[in-house]
C-alpha cells in the first residue's frame, strides 16, 4: 500500500513515514502543498495523510486538487486543533480524521479502515 504523507513539520512527517515503513507500508512524504499535488499527479498512491493547516493552503484544498488527478485516493486528515468544527469538516469531506499527537497504532487502524484492509 502506497501512502503519501503531507505536513509542514518535517521532523514529524519524516519520522512518521519511517515508522510506517517499519510496519510494511510504502510511505512517501512532503512538506509542501506543491510537492503533494505534484507527487499525487506523478505517482500512484492509495491514500494521503494530510495536515489540515498547511502554510500555503488548507488540507481540504489540497485534497480537492489531488482528487482532480487521482480521484480514487483515500484521505486521512491530521490536525493539532481537535475542535468539533475541525472534526465536522473532516467527516463532511468523507474522510478520516486524527488529532495530534496520536499513537501510531491509531493511525494504522484508520489507514486500514480507509483502505478496507
Amino acid at each position, binding site marked *: 500500500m502506497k501512502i503519501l504523507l503531507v505536513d509542514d513539520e518535517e521532523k514529524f512527517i519524516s519520522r512518521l513515514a519511517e515508522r510506517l515503513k517499519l510496519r510494511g507500508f510504502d510511505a512517501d512524504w512532503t512538506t509542501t502543498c506543491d510537492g503533494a499535488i505534484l507527487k499525487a499527479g506523478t505517482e500512484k498512491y492509495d491514500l494521503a495523510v494530510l495536515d489540515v493547516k498547511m*502554510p500555503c493552503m488548507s488540507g481540504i484544498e489540497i485534497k480537492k486538487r489531488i482528487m482532480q488527478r487521482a480521484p480514487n485516493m483515500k484521505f486521512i486528515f491530521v490536525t493539532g486543533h481537535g475542535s468539533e468544527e475541525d472534526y465536522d469538516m473532516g467527516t463532511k469531506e468523507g474522510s478520516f480524521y486524527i488529532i495530534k499527537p496520536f499513537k501510531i497504532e491509531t493511525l494504522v487502524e484508520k489507514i486500514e479502515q480507509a483502505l478496507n484492509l
Partner: protein
Amino acid sequence: MEKKIGRICAEGFSFFGMTNRLISHELKNILAIISETLGLIDELVALSDTGTKWKPGKLQSLSESVIEEVERANSIIRNMNTFAHSVDEFIREVDVSQIVNLMIEISQLDSPAKNVRFRLAENDDCVIYTSPFFLEKLIYHVIDFSLRGAGPENEIRISFDSDDYGVKIIFSGIAQIIIGEFPTKKEDLLAEILSAKVSLETTARELSILLPKKIGESFIQNLLPAD
C-alpha cells in the same frame, strides 16, 4: 461609549482566545514530533535487539531533536507567559520593539505566516507609556495585514523611528496592490485607545503606527479601576 467599551472587551477576549489557539496548536505539533521521535527510537532499539543495524549517529540525532523541540516549546511557553502578563497593569512603560518581537513570534505560529520572513531593525530607545495589551493587539493586526499583503520578496522589514513625540513603527515590504481596506474600524478603535495613528502608504509599500510617548486621555480610562 458603553457600546465602544463592550466592543473593546469582546475584541480583547477574542484576541486572548486566538493566541491561545495558536499556541496550543503549535504545542500539539511539538508533542507530535516528540511522540514520533521517541516512538522511532523505541522501535530502532527493539530492532537492534534482533541484530538490525542502523546508521551511526542516528540515535544521537533523534535524541538531540527531542531536546530542540523541548527548547522550542519552552520558548513558546515563555512568550505565552509574557503575553499573559501584559494585562497585569492596564497602562505602564513598555519597550515597543519587545512587543513587536513578541507579536511576530506569536503571529508566526499561524501557518500562513510561516512563509514570510520578518527582519527587525536594531533600535535604541523605544520605551513609551501605554497600554501593553491594546498595543499588542494593534501590532498583531498590522502584522496580520502585512502578511496578507507581503510583497514578492516574502519579507517584511520592521524599523523604528523615535523622537520627542514618540515612536513610529514602520513595516516595509508590503505589496503595492493590496486587497481589502486598512485600517478598518477595528484598528481605528485600537488607535483611538492608544492615541496612535495607523497609516498605509501603498506607493512606499509601507505601513506605520505612530505612538506617543505617553497615552492620552481616552474613553478607555473608564475601564481603569478607581483608585
